[in-house]
């Protein structure tokens, strides 16, 4: 299972980076989405996978049984999802606005501030 997830994560990173290198703004956004998801998967995989056991404390127990997975990475991922959602929403509006004002979605045309 780790192998499949590792391959999936790797290809998500690769695709995300490839899209970031394109000139179109909309592809940049898609690149962000893929990179964000790739990172979430990486946190999930790196912290160790356990099969079909939710991290819930049993009714008569005081602590989590040791075979249950670590719940913290899932909390981290949840936070990361929320944050990247916020940034993506902002980035979408920003790029839309930039497109309205500059009249292009080609990042190479946006050189006004580089000189």
């Amino acid at each position, binding site marked *: 299972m780790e192998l499949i997830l590792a391959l999936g994560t790797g290809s998500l990173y690769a695709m995300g980076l490839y899209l*970031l290198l394109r000139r179109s*703004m909309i592809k*940049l956004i898609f690149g*962000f989405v893929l*990179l*964000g998801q*790739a*990172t979430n998967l*990486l*946190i999930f*995989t*790196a*912290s*160790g996978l356990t099969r079909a056991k939710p991290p819930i404390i049993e009714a008569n127990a005081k602590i989590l049984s040791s075979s249950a997975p*670590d719940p*913290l*990475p899932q909390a*981290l991922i949840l*936070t*990361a999802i929320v*944050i990247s959602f*916020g*940034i993506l929403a*902002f*980035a979408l509006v*920003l*790029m839309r*606005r*930039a497109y309205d*004002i*500059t009249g292009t979605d080609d*990042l190479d045309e*946006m050189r*006004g*501030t*580089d000189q």
Partner: protein
Amino acid sequence: MTWLAVSPIIIPLGTGILLLLFRRLRYQKLVSMIGAVVFFVHTIVLLWHIYQTGIEVVHVGNWPAPYGITLVIDLFSAIMIAVTGFVGFNIALYALSDIDRGRNRFGFHPLMHILLMGVCGAFMTGDLFNLYVWFEVMLMSSFVLMALGGERSQLEGAVKYVSLNFIASVIFLTAIGIIYGKTGTLNLADLALKVGDNGSGPMIRSAVMMLLTAFGIKAGIFPYFFWLPASYHTPPATVSALFAGLLTKVGVYAMIRVFSLVFAGEMSGSLKPVLIIISGLTMVTGVLGAAAQFEIRKILSFHIISQIGYMTLGLALFTPLALAAAIFYLVHHIIVKTNLFLIGGLIRHIKGSYDLKKIGGLYLSNPLLAFLFLVPALSLGGIPPLSGFFAKFTIIRAGLEVESYLIVLIALAVGILTLYSMTKIWAEAFWKVDPAEKPVTKSIPIMMLLPIILMAAATIAIGFFPEPVLEISRRAADQLFNPEYYIRKVLGVY
């Protein structure tokens, strides 16, 4: 003292919320100013308290470390928070006149206070993931501040700024994932113990390099600085000054904190030459980039980069004196750089342009402003007896002590080139005859002049009485260099 310890987060947050409730312009300015004053006073009291008693630890929600989120304020954090308070106060003051009606209506003031909250949170946290969250709080508000106003150059700058910072965040988060998978903890003190015990394998080492990249993008070190001169000059002077003073320094802070605490082993090993080379290249490229520019804010932006090189050099040399120098440099640089951007804004206010080719004659029309410019400009170049001299002097002494002569030579040469750029602004904007046919001169609003005077006074004060600041930096550096006390204090084992 829990309330005092969390006040740098609570006060800007409260101010931000109040500002969202009182939308009338008059109230906005009033509440913002009161919030900034209260914030500033608290940061100073906090610094005094930490100086007297040592490290303060707050376990949020009473979850003990390393399970919950821990806020740790050691002397280094307290110094940075106090400087943030000072800068925040001055920026709030300057914003009263500089920020136009539209930007006021669309929430400049609440965003500014939330930004201050994010910066202080990043300075206080003792948890790697929490550091990421504070980074994002800070970045989100900075994204909006950057784009607020919607001018074409602002939007173009913001696209680059947002993209590069998003990539930095992704890399940071990836490193966090790897570190958590490898060690099972994210609390910095706990990490320091675990990494110290097990040594670092290839996974940890690659995570360290990712952290260097992520913090490097945020700090604007070579070769990741390109977003900085492409975006920092686009928003109004108040916003530029706030960013220039604080944001890149949060990256430097994170680097110093994480590398000196958790990866001290790496620091004395393979990371050290890498950091020294990067610092040298950062200094040189920044200062050379500035030499080619003729727009005041672009010159200053490139100088941020070259100055960042000095700070990372302080970290790279990794001796107690070098760390103290880096901290002193941070304090000096934040004040001076913010001041220079504010003066740039004032020049624009008087002459209507940032372009050095289009302006001139300011020495004749505004001698006071000319003097106020000279203070931070000469300080940036390292002229005694201003703050920059002692900052550079300490770094160079630290470099000589470990016999890194080449990097010392580079640091000295970059200092001279910095002076060249500053004299360029001086000669073009102040000295030369105004090239405009009908020179325009506007009167200076006192609210814009006051923060500049305050910060110039701080620069001179540090210059004439460097010993207290050096002493406190030295003690902060000792705490950083001997993290046992920090670790014991956080984990509660004695």
